[in-house]
């Protein structure tokens, strides 16, 4: 019986506590009578409720409204994300009680600034007509000033949507055309957790101002959620009452121990801890500086400074930021970078769903021609990202590469991607499966660096110039890393799984430097070669920006030319030069040569043997035989043919071979493995039994 008695006592006490929680509207700025605490209040009117409610002949009738209504036409919140998800967005706030948005229009009858605060209907039995209650703190004509904290205005694009249906069943479809797989839910709870409310209309439940706010409650920002250590906690609870962001719990932005130093943040939220600010680090529910998505600042600036007034006041990702987040702004504004700070207003969430050839009119997708961009959120999901990169701190590369080395790191968690449908070697991949969450790093890169954004590329080469060197054009990385190609860097699959490659598929271990000690059984990131120049020291990892062309990273950062602009040559000096990019992973010469083609450059009249002639390769540019974009090739061992276009063929005229066949081992090459036109190098050869690579 005791539990029953206790519960009865508790039940009896609950209303008492409820009644005691806040003295109500009297002590708030919504007390517009002469006794109100705010700047906006009446000079004579002593009643409180009267500013909104009247017990008879109310207009509108519900909720016994007594304030003149706003007839404003509002500019409503909308976003490409909602459009692509098929989420119904309102075109206007309802003007009649039966229409969604009507409840919000009640609030806006003061807060949109178009109607005098003192414009009431009836006061103590007197119909006011055109006269208004005299107020202080308002515009000369009586309206709420735009400088007031509660001013909303009629542009609702910078405010959390209201008059919008609550529908948790909607999901974004990913997958290949016609076959939805791995949908991304709209990330809403089935219904909002109390004390938040939705408002029922004939067509469903809707979010209104009063979903989050109770105009009567004495609580910060009139939030319905009254429990929490500080404003940040109350807002966090409020947001999470509806929103259910996948993997948010445990993400770095929800757990970081870093703090803001900007005193305004502490004053506003009662805490400066990133983990406590949660959504408020990046978003504002009202008057967001970035439209849409209620971002605090436009696009990347949100990442740079978070909730602080400047980068220096926050532990975020801007130059001079207080400790905590990685300083991305510094590296991404270097000479060679992904175009983040220089391009604005192009990125839209879910742009991954609108590739080349598939963008509806009026929408921006990924089409390079019109929508080239790379915002932070194209490669990172700030709601899911966690701490940890592909390579440990202080290292260029992962410690122990394996078959799964190309799996996304925590920093790339939850990012959309594309997986090509791989055609035969030399054919451009044009069919893709969209991924709600990329599992491999290249799937993120290929959103832009493939047909998906770049469109048709003839022999792998697009018509768009690179940022690093406008004289050469971007190439299609899906075309290059196709597992059906005869040779690639193992970005997509291990070389032992490279179906287009014939034996021996991988190099020998002596042809690789640590940590790449498992040739044939390891994969790599695009960002093992592309990144910032000081990744082992102060630079954050990843291809954000660099002072070096093509963001080549590692000890050596020059390819295919040396720092002086001349081509790298095959000789012991160049092959030992730490500036040589390839040398980062391939010990081309470390006292000995690693294949008998390279070794045919020995000294005058001597040197490594094999084949015909002595030293015939000495001082040959690397790009006489190898493609200058060493991602992948239709021929083995990244060899290119004289017929290949620039930029694979450096300057369009550097490649010499017209036929190549991979030897059975690094030291088994002879003249027949490589054929040339008459008069070039060692001229035409009789192909080995397997023939030359096509």
């Amino acid at each position, binding site marked *: 019986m005791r539990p029953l008695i206790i519960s009865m006592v508790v039940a009896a006490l609950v209303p008492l506590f409820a009644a005691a929680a806040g003295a109500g509207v009297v002590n708030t700025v919504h007390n517009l009578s002469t006794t109100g605490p705010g700047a906006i209040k009446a000079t004579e009117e*002593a009643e409180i409720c009267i500013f909104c409610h009247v017990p*008879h002949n109310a*207009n509108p009738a519900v909720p016994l409204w007594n304030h003149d209504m706003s007839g404003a036409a509002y500019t409503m919140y909308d976003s490409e994300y909602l459009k692509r998800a098929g989420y119904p967005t309102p075109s206007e706030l309802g003007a009649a009680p039966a229409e969604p948005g009507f409840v919000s229009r009640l609030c806006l009858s003061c807060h949109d600034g178009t109607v005098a605060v003192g414009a009431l209907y009836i006061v103590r*039995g007197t119909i006011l007509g055109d006269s208004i209650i005299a107020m202080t703190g308002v515009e000369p004509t009586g309206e709420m000033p735009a400088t007031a904290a509660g001013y909303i205005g009629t542009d609702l694009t910078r405010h959390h949507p209201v008059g919008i249906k609550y529908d948790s069943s909607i999901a974004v479809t990913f997958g290949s055309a016609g076959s939805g797989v791995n949908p991304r839910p709209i990330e809403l709870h089935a219904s909002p957790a109390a004390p938040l409310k939705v408002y029922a209309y004939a067509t469903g439940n809707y979010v209104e101002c009063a979903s989050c706010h109770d105009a009567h409650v004495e609580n910060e920002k009139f939030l319905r959620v009254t429990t929490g250590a500080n404003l940040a906690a109350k807002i966090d609870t409020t947001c999470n009452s509806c929103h259910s962001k996948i993997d948010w719990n445990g993400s770095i932005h929800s757990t970081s121990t870093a703090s803001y130093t900007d005193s305004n943040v502490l004053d506003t939220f009662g805490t400066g801890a990133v983990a406590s600010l949660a959504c408020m680090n990046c978003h504002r529910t009202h008057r967001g500086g970035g439209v849409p998505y209620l971002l605090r600042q436009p696009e990347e600036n949100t990442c740079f400074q978070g909730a602080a007034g400047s980068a220096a006041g926050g532990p975020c990702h801007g130059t001079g930021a207080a400790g905590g987040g990685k300083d991305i702004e510094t590296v991404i504004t270097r000479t060679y970078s992904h175009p983040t700070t220089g391009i604005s207003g192009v990125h839209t969430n879910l742009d991954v769903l609108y590739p080349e050839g598939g963008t509806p009119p009026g929408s921006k997708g990924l089409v390079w021609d019109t929508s080239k961009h790379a915002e932070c959120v194209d490669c990172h999901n700030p709601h899911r990202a966690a701490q940890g990169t592909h390579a440990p701190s202080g290292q260029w590369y992962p410690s122990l590469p394996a078959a799964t080395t190309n799996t996304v790191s925590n920093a790339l968690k939850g990012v959309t991607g594309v997986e090509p449908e791989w055609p035969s070697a030399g054919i451009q991949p044009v069919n893709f499966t969209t991924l709600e969450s990329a599992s491999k790093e290249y799937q993120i890169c290929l959103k832009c660096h493939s047909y998906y954004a770049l469109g048709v590329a003839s022999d792998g080469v697009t018509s768009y110039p690179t940022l690093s060197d406008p004289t050469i054009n971007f190439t299609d990385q899906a075309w290059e890393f196709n597992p059906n190609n005869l040779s690639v860097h193992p970005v997509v699959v291990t070389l032992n799984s490279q179906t287009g490659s014939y034996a021996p598929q991988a190099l020998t271990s002596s042809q690789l430097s640590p940590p790449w000690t498992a040739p044939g059984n390891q994969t790599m990131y695009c960002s093992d070669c592309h990144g910032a120049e000081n990744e082992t020291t102060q630079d954050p990892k990843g291809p954000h920006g660099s002072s070096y062309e093509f963001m080549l990273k590692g000890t050596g950062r020059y390819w295919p030319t040396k720092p002086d602009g001349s081509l790298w040559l095959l000789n012991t000096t160049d092959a030992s030069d730490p500036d040589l990019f390839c040398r980062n992973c391939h010990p081309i010469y470390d006292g000995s040569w690693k294949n008998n083609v390279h070794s045919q450059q020995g000294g005058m009249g001597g040197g490594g043997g094999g084949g015909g002639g002595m030293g015939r390769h000495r001082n040959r540019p690397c790009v006489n035989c190898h493609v200058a974009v060493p991602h992948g090739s239709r021929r083995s061992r990244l060899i290119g043919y004289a017929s290949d276009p620039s930029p694979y063929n450096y300057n369009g005229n550097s490649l010499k071979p017209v036929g190549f066949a991979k030897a059975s081992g690094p030291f088994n090459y002879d003249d027949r493995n490589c054929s040339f036109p008459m008069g070039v190098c060692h001229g035409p050869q009789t192909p080995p039994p397997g023939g030359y690579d096509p």
Partner: protein
Amino acid sequence: MVSGKRWLSMLFVLFVLTAGRVLDPLTPSTVFGGSIVGSRHDLKSDWEKGSVLMKESLNNYGEVCVYCHTPHGGDESLGPLWNRDYTPASFNVYTSPTMDTTAAGIPGAVSLACLSCHDGTIAVDSIINAPGSGPNLTGPWYGQGAATYHFAMKEGANACGECHVGSPAHDARHTYLTTDLSDDHPISMPYPSPSEDPQFNTPPDAMKGWGGASPGDVKLYAGKVECPSCHNVHDPDVVPFLRKANTGSALCYTCHIK
């Protein structure tokens, strides 16, 4: 000593003052202190104060109470000794998606009494039993009266609202409740319990509310909110016939925790 002439003049002054106050609509409470007499609920007084047109619009029965009450033959289903010849209409009642409490009910007897004038369905002088003894079938009451017209409290021609819209006579539109009560505070619903909505104060008497025997505070009628919960129909002191002053919205806050 006061001379006879002086006595006469004093009596005259007293008479004028008294008569003036009786007829002066601005200061009824100065003399009568919270009495219905001389208030807008005193239809006899309204008639007497009224214009020629007003006198043509309702019967003057020469009594105050008779417009609502009769000691015999009244309709108790509507109110105490109720004298109004009234068949309740069907009402639209208040509903709101923001209400957590029991919605408004069909108006009960206590409120129907008020609505027998304020819904505008019958004339204000439409009574069952006219003054005088006996059946009184010839007297000047509704339908057979001295007045040419018998107007009801509603807008439009041939009704109070023909004049009482601010011009030529004072604006009374806010008192025309009509049968659509959806824009009026809900009535005839049980006072909400804390579990229904914690944002209501708990009355000291669940059946009678705060007022108890006193007319000066909010009353419940058998635990329900009715028109006279807030209004004291007999006392014009607190405009508009409120049970207590609403300064600082004190009347509203008696029930509401907002």
